[in-house]
Every structure is written in C-alpha cells, then in structure tokens.
C-alpha cells in the first residue's frame, strides 16, 4: 500500500499544479436552480478541493498520524488546500472552511472526522456560509470507522484514513450544486396506540392545536395502565389518575378517536402520509353513526341490556382471563368510548342482543370491516408491550402450577375492581395466601435464548409495590422478594425500597432455580440460594408471583414495517439516536412514545410521549419540510421509455410521460427517497441519482481500487 502511494506521488503533484483554470467554475452561482441541461454535463470540470483533518482531541489523533495523513492529502489530485485542527466542529474549525473557500477558491470540501450522522449538518452549514452550495461537502469517517475500531493499530488506522480521504476527495471533485425541495406539511397528526403513552401524545398534539387521529386496536383506550391497581412509589390508584385523561381524550375536540381499529397501509413521506385505517367490524353503532343512518336517538348508550341476554361466555382478556365476558362486551365499566363490541369469533348470531337493544337499533350483526383513509403530516407510534410468555421458562412452572401467577394477573387479583374484588386469593382454592414469593428477573436478563437479555426495568419497583399491597391487605402475610439486584433508580424509588423493607418484606438475594409443587396442598417449594448466606434455601410458600419480562406487543412488528421503522437487536423499536434523539426514528416524520422503544415505567413513558408529541408537532407548526435533494433524475436523451423502472420503484415515484412525441420517465421528486433501485437497474444508464450519481460513485471505487490513479 505504502509503496503504491509513493509511486503515484509525482502524478498527483502534476495535477495539483493547475490552479488557475479552476477560477471560472468556482465562481458559478452556488444556488442555481435545478439543472436545465442534462445533469451529467453540469459536473465541475476543474475541481479544487479543500481537505480538513480533525483530531477530535485524542479520539482521532491518538491512533492516527495526523501529519502523515495531511502530507498524503496534499498529494491527491484536485486537492487545493489541506489543513488540520483540534476540533473541526468548533467555531474556529468551521471558520477555517468558510474563509478558505473564498481564499483558495475551493469548489468542494472534505472533512475527515467523525460519522456524517453527527456533523454532516454542521459542515454543510459551514460550506454554505463560505459561499458554496452545501451539497459540495463530503465527509470522510476516520473515527467510528477508523481510529476507534483500530485503536491499537496506528499504522493501519493511518493508512485507512488516507484511503478514506482519497475516496472522499474523488467524490468531492465531482459534486454538484443541489437544491433541497420544500413540501407543505399536512396539519394533522396520527398516534397509533392509546395506552398512557399514546393518550398523552395525542392530548399534547391536540392541545397544541393539531388535529390528531388516535388509533387503538382494542375496544377501549387506557392500555396496560388501566389494568394496574396502584402505581409506585406514590401508591396512587392507577385508574383514578388515568380515567381523567381517558375522559379528556374522549372529549378533546381535536382528537378523532378510532378504537377497535388498526393501521392497514401507509404511503407517502413526512408532511404527507396517506394512512389507511381498518375499522374492525364492531357490530355496534355509536350514536353518531346511528344518526348518520337515520336512526333518530339510536346507537349504543352503554346500557348493557345486550350483555345481560347474550348466551355466550368467554374469558375477559382485560382481567387476564380470570373473569368472564359475553360475546357482546365492554372490558370494564370505565371504558372510553362506552360502546359495546361484538366478538364475531364467538358470537352465535342468535339475535337476542338485537331484540334487547330495541329501538336504539345499535347492534348490526352483519357489520363488516371498513377502510378509512386519512392524511397526516407526522405520526407517533405508541405500541406498548405484552408480557413475555413466562411458561417458556419451564423451571418455574407457570401454567403448570395453579398458584404461580404473573405480575399482571397479580395486579388484577389485588385490584378492587378485579375478579376477586381486590381480595388476593390462590387460584387453586380461593384461600388467602400467607406467604407469597415474588420472583424478579423472571425471563429478563436471560442469555439462554429462551428469555430476554435486557432488564425489563420496572419489575423491581412494581414488585416492591406488590409486597406493600399484600402487607397492607393481609394481616400476618410474609412477602419474600427473590432478586439479583434491586434497581430503584428513579425519583423517590430508593426511598420506596427502604419503606418496603421497613414494612417487613424479606429480600432474598438469589435467583430461583426451580419451583416444585406439593401436589396435595398446591403449595410451592422454591429452590434458590441465599447467595449472601452462601446457603441453599428451600422455602414453601402459598403463592408465587413471577415478575415476567416484557416484550414488544403482538402487533408491533406489522405496524412498524408499515411506517418503515427499524427495530433494534432486542426487538424494541429503534430510535434515531439512543441519547440525543430517543423519540425520533430514521424515518422522517415518525416518532416513538413509551415502551415500544424500550421498557419504561409510567413517568418515563409520559415524558417520552410528551417528547414525541413535541417532536411531531414541530414540522406541522413550521408548515413545510425540506427534503434531502437525493432524487432520481431522468437523462431524457438516454431514456428509451421502456418503463421498467416505473414498476420497480417501491415508492410509486416514477411515471412514463409523453414528451416531444416519445415516452420518457418522469420523477415525482417529493415521493422519491433516492433509494437507487431505478438507477441501478436502468439498462440505458438514463437515471441520474443526485448526490450518488454513477460518475461520483465510480470515482470513489476507482479511488479506492486504483489508489487514486484514475
């Protein structure tokens, strides 16, 4: 490699000795309109590239020989100026670019520093301030892909940095002026999922004056939080603090609530999403729907007469299957909206409910799914979570031993509005338990491939709360908490831990190896090690509560794909940046709220929802968004009008049009995402991918493979 470089030095030097001829092109107006001539011909013929090497403190300079890289850059074709600086992203660093553009009549800028995901916008702005079109900037990543991954190989990292710069210069020499396109933003937003995250996001958007569609797959809003009894560490009744918000959502003028509905299709892009919503056949008309059908004073008023007569009994999923519901049902008395739903999978269509409903004529047993289309500018996904199926961890016997329950079942069993009226009883015999064990990290922090490798994050705290609840309700009860670590990191959480220990919960530091059931008493024998005593424990208890891991809700994968959102390795949805952009996604205009991004307790969920709502409202308030100008362009004189690209385009951005008596392809720029599918395919080479044009990419490849000898 090194040998190769020294060889071509003379050639490179020759090239750099032609500064004068560049003048005329450098003065070309930087903000010219979209190319009237064929884009191919608008490439700068005489390039003058400025190269800047960032030390990033010792992040880069610690493992890369900056002077060697600088000397090397000077030898490259088209390079007119080279400099280096401690922190190129600092004000003095940016100033260098601005002044040098004028002083050295530069036509392109290369900064060799970090990932473009961090500072590309910074340096584009500096390029613009210097008087060049910002798209004449190219970044060479010598940190994430250089110094950091080759920290112990200075020579190799230096050589790789030289390669990266050579490649970047090759492209910068051929960069064109590009003008971003602005598109108007629809003044409406969508929130998918109406748990506490979705409700909060929808309320914030609505209060900011934005029309908001709130889509919920269940018949009622409220989500997981409405299933909880109390909340830690304040011990507020969960329903009591939630129902006012549910009522607000139901009444908000700016919120169009669609329950028992799901997103069916999404088209478009930021500012202009066309979303198709499937309103699942509910079998029941709202008063408004009834009125629209000419039924005066009709529609469901939630009286429940239908429920009384329905002969079909099914388990109520809201009560974790521990309480029955009918085939026509509501989850619980506080549902919003208070509209009954027919479960068509179990309905026998006997018609008794229709008779009971009488003149209200609210029930339509022939109702079919309905598709509704709406247009929104931005969307917030608040898709929530499900419990991990903890029966997969067979050693704890869930679904095998009757008195082993998961924590959400415990919430219903301890809740005053739950199936037992808040009296905690053993499922096997209805007896009040006197010894209850809580198993933390049940299926979380599990690297076996069966459970989840992550910490589910709120189990420690709700298990402390569970211990408190039984101490409060059952005199003489003894809670045991089997834990590996207690993670009480939130505000007033450690104090809560102190309080529960003081109330008498016994904390056993050891993970439970297995549980055996006494077949006669249905008591459970827990085998663990008290790792602090260094002794195995065999503890017989009346009931076991598994603080099961949480996982993305069932519908998450389908929905995220519709919105083009990625997921991270653990299955939760991928944020744009884990620290600095936790609510954003890599799809512009789509944001994340609550647990679907990763396990969160209620305070963090609400905070995340407010963040997502704020982020989602910004493009709407600005009213227009700039799209990166990476569109495909048709080189019409080369286009044969075959139309094959039209069918290939995943975004329906291409069409064939008549022009001068022949067919040529035309791009709808707002729809084009610059994916390059068409450009890579076009048999005639007639598609020009702006900023990633064939000559630019070929120059990069040549620069890499040929070591710059193009």
């Amino acid at each position, binding site marked *: 490699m090194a040998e190769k470089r020294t060889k071509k030095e003379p050639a490179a030097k020759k090239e750099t000795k032609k500064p004068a001829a560049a003048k005329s092109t450098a003065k070309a107006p930087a903000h010219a309109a979209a190319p009237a001539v064929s884009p191919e011909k608008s490439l700068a013929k005489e390039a003058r590239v400025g190269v800047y090497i960032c030390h990033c403190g010792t992040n880069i300079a610690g493992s890369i020989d900056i002077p060697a890289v600088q000397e090397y850059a000077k030898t490259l074709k088209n390079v007119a100026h080279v400099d280096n600086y401690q922190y190129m992203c600092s004000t003095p660093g940016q100033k260098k670019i601005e002044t040098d553009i004028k002083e050295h009549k530069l036509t392109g800028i290369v900064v060799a520093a970090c990932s473009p995901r961090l500072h590309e916008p910074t340096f584009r702005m500096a390029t613009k301030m210097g008087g060049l079109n910002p798209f004449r900037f190219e970044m060479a990543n010598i940190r994430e892909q250089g110094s950091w991954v080759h920290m112990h190989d200075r020579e190799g990292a230096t050589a790789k940095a030289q390669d990266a710069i050579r490649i970047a210069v090759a492209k910068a020499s051929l960069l064109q002026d590009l003008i971003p396109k602005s598109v108007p933003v629809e003044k409406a937003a969508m929130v998918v999922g109406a748990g506490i995250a979705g409700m909060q996001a929808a309320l914030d958007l609505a209060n900011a004056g934005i029309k908001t569609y709130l889509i919920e797959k269940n018949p009622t809003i409220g989500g997981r939080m409405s299933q909880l009894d109390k909340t830690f560490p304040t011990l507020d009744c969960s329903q009591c603090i939630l129902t006012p918000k549910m009522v607000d959502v139901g009444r908000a003028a700016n919120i169009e609530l669609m329950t028992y509905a799901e997103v069916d299709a999404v088209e478009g892009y930021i500012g202009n999403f066309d979303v198709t919503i499937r309103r699942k056949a509910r079998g029941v008309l709202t008063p408004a729907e009834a009125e629209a059908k000419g039924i005066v004073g009709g529609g469901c008023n939630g009286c429940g007469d239908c429920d009384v007569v329905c002969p079909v009994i099914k388990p109520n999923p809201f009560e974790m299957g521990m309480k029955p519901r009918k085939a026509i049902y509501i989850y619980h008395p506080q549902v919003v909206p208070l509209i009954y739903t027919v479960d068509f999978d179990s309905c026998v269509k006997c018609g008794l409910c229709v008779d009971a409903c009488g003149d209200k004529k609210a029930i339509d047993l022939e109702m079919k799914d309905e598709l509704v289309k709406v247009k929104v500018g931005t969307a917030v996904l608040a898709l929530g979570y499900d419990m991990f199926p903890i029966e997969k961890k067979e050693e704890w016997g869930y679904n095998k031993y009757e008195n082993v329950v998961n924590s959400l079942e415990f919430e219903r069993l301890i809740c005053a509005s739950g199936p037992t009226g808040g009296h905690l009883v053993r499922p096997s015999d209805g007896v009040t338990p006197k010894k209850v064990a809580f198993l933390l990290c049940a299926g979380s922090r599990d*690297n076996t491939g069966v459970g989840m490798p992550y910490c589910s994050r709120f189990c420690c705290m709700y298990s402390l709360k569970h211990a408190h609840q039984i101490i409060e309700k059952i005199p003489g009860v003894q809670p045991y908490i089997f834990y590996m670590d207690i993670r009480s990191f939130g505000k007033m959480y450690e104090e809560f831990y102190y309080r529960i220990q003081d109330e008498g919960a016994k904390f056993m530091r050891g*993970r439970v*190896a*297995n549980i055996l059931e006494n077949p006669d008493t249905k008591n459970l024998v827990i085998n*663990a*090690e008290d790792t602090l005593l*260094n002794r*195995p424990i065999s503890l017989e208890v009346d009931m076991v509560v598994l603080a099961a891991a949480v996982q993305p809700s069932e519908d998450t994968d389908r929905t995220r794909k519709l919105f083009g959102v990625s997921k991270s390795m653990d299955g939760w949805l991928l944020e744009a940046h884990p620290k600095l952009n936790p609510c954003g996604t890599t799809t512009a205009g789509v944001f994340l709220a609550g647990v679907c991004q990763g396990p969160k307790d209620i305070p963090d969920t609400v905070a995340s929802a407010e963040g997502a709502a704020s982020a989602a409202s910004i493009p709407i308030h600005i009213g227009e968004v700039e799209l990166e100008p990476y569109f495909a362009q048709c080189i019409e004189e080369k286009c044969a009008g075959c139309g094959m690209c039209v069918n290939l385009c995943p975004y329906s951005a291409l069409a064939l049009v008549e022009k001068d008596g022949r067919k040529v392809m035309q791009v709808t720029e707002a729809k084009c995402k610059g994916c390059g599918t068409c450009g890579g395919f076009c048999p005639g080479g007639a598609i020009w991918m702006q900023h990633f044009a064939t000559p630019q990419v070929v120059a990069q490849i040549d620069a890499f493979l040929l070591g710059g000898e193009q």
Partner: protein
Amino acid sequence: MARTKGYPEALEKKLADTRLYEDERHPEFTKTVEKISMTIPHMCFQCGTCTASCPSAPRSSYRIRKFVRRSLLGLEDEALTDPDLWLCTTCYSCTDRCPRDIAPTDVIMAMRNLAFKRDIIPVNFLKTVQAIYTTGHGVPNNDVNRAARKKLGMHPDPPTTHRHPQYIKGIQYILDYFELKKNADRIVKEREG
C-alpha cells in the same frame, strides 16, 4: 498467598490473613479454564441458580457458584485444592438453568483436569483407569455374572474387549499416549504404597 506473620504456629493459623490479595489471582487460570471447558465463566453474575440446582449443595459445603467465581477471578490454588471440587455429580441441572448461559458443570470438569495436572485427584478415578487398561472395562465382568449370562443362554463374556481381548492393545496405546497409566500407577502407589 496468605501473608505469614511470624507468630507461633497455632496463632499463625488462628489469625491467618483472610483478605483476598491481588497476587492470588492468576488471569491465565481463567483463560485456561475457558479453553478446556469451552464455556464462559467470566460472565457469571453470581445469582446462585447453579447452587440451588445442585444435588450436592444441600448436603455439603460444595457451592458451584463459588467455583465459577474462583474461575472468574483466577483463584487457581483456592479452586484446585478445595476437596469439594470432586462433589459435582455432573447432572448438568445448573447448566440447563444458568441465565448467563454458562455451563458450570464443564467449568468443574476443566478445573478437575487442571487439578490432575498437579496430581490432585481422588484415587477412585485412577482405579477406573487401571481397570480399563487391563480389561477395557471400568466395571469388568466377574464369575457370578458369567454364570448368570450362561444361564440366560448368552456367551459368558460380552462381545466387547472381554470376548475380543485383541482390542485391548489399542486402548492401552491411547492411555499410554497420554501417559495416563503411568501417572495413575505412580499416584496410586504414592497414596496407598
């Protein structure tokens, strides 16, 4: 190693320094155990699932969690000289349940291999070696059994090395290749005279 204080012997023992000093740690030991065991004891977070799964723990001072910890810290001497090392029944219950996907059983096996290199090994293990060297079987045939086999209409010796002793030399070659017989004989002689 524990610091000596120059006290009379009884006091030296009673007041022995129990603190863990850095020089007890042998990082190489961690690596060697991992190579032999093909598992990852350095990932242990000491939850105790292994000990609680262990059939030997409730009836002895054997704590497999402690051995994994010693392997993680490189406490070679403490691990290899602890007689509890030989109480693992290799039932693999800990391996099935370990949330960190470590195979503690195989960690024990690796440590036993390393102990043997220092001649630390219970004699019964070596007697199995001696039996196999002579007969090919760890539990060889005997006259009572031969009579029973005949009664069943079977050959008095099974079609193994018992009936075909010409195969024994292949077994002896393998054991000699690793000098196992030689070492077994030497150690047994040292212990039992």
